């Protein structure tokens, strides 16, 4: 249901300095249409900052982020932030802010809840839901906006394996409908399952961009090889 026309996202020489620290350092990256991109890299490499910069939450100190056409975006954070109101009301709020009027607002919100299997708890206060439920609610909120691109910043980092599997299933189905994914994770199994391509970030730059099925066996960059050796020492 997402906007189907292809688009391209390009970062050119993007640097971001936050609190005196150079989080991104002249990063170049082209995200082509239709792929599921997983951004990998060690802690502090700049993965989260990259996503926030592409999404527009952080203005680059230098360089540009350009879109081949305007695209509706959404982002799911590691810790979902829900408003103090019911699960359904959280979705209705996001839709209202984005100009979706009744009766479509309610029907879309209800459909999105059903989509992530939360229709039974529509009226429960969102902030007392479990971590996994809140993250699925965050995905429903993002999906309800029909984004052309969805950024996910370690969406399962604070979840247990059961909740992680549920969230992964929802993410995969959103991508299957044509929403472009750009996601960070520390879970290499998850990266394998969800990625078409891997972007490996090291010291604020994109060290490589490689098809996922090749990356884990034959990473192109030395940094990625060392990273994989550290993460998968048995290989």
């Amino acid at each position, binding site marked *: 249901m997402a906007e189907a026309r292809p688009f391209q996202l390009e970062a050119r020489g993007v640097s971001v300095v936050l609190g005196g620290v150079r989080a991104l350092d002249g990063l170049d990256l082209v995200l082509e249409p239709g792929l599921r991109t997983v951004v990998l890299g060690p802690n502090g490499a700049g993965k989260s900052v990259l996503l926030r910069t592409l999404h527009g*939450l952080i203005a680059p100190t230098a360089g540009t982020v350009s879109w081949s056409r305007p695209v509706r975006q959404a982002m799911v954070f590691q810790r979902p*932030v829900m*408003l*103090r109101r019911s699960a359904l009301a959280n979705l209705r709020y996001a839709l209202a802010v984005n100009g979706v009027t009744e009766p479509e607002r309610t029907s879309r919100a209800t459909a999105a809840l059903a989509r992530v299997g939360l229709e039974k708890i529509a009226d429960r*206060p969102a902030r*007392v839901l479990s971590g996994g439920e809140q993250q699925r609610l965050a995905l429903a909120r993002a999906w309800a906006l029909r984004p052309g691109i969805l950024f996910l910043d370690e969406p399962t980092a604070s979840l247990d394996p059961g909740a992680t599997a549920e969230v992964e299933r929802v993410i995969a189905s959103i991508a299957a409908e044509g929403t472009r994914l750009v996601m960070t994770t520390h879970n290499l199994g998850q990266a394998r399952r969800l990625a078409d391509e891997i972007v490996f970030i090291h010291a604020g730059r994109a060290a490589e961009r490689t098809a996922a099925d090749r990356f884990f066996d034959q990473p192109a960059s030395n940094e990625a090889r060392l990273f994989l050796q550290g993460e998968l020492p048995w290989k």
Partner: protein
Amino acid sequence: MFEIFASLGVALELIGGADPELWGIVLLSLKLSLASAVAGAAIGLPLGALIAVGTFPGRRALIVVLNALLGLPSVVVGLVVYLLLSRAGPLGEFGILFTPAAIVVAQTVLVVPIVAALARQAAEDAWGEYREQLTSLGVSRLRAVPTILWDTRFSLLTVVMAGFGRAASEVGAVMVVGGNIDGVTRVMTTAIALETSKGDLPLALGLGVVLIAVVLAINAGAFGIKEWSAKRHG
């Protein structure tokens, strides 16, 4: 020492015996303080949230002015309101000096800085948590103000109660602009001041007991609501 207990005994009799003079004063006090708290909240809450969330020219100056108002002696506020409302003043044509309305105006001026300062704190904390998510959803800063106010509504209840407490316990400004006219603008605090200076300790003490009880009860209620909401809404 004995005198205090004797006075306290008479005071409790006045309270229990539904003394019309005492309860008339209490009722007027509550009415005016409630009106001031509501008016102060209507101005102070959005103002506090706007300062917390907004980026606009004069924001820093506004914070300094509000903080200064927090520490301003209430008698001075009373004097300024008096000058504004007096017949020759810019708002003199309304003719509300020495009426309950003048008390509400003065108390509101005193309540707004407190409510705004405390609301700003609550809103800043919430904004720190919500900023990225709301920005990501496409919520403008101005649109975020009502969202933040609604989401911190249970904390803000305590804030409004603090404003109510400020209004209810106010003496100096109320004396200046209300005039402490018997049956018209005599409220608990000004009555206590007057009766004490006259030596009628039982009435003063009775009013004091009621004043403390009211402020305690209202704050206990606000606290209870906050606890309940934290459990229910997280």
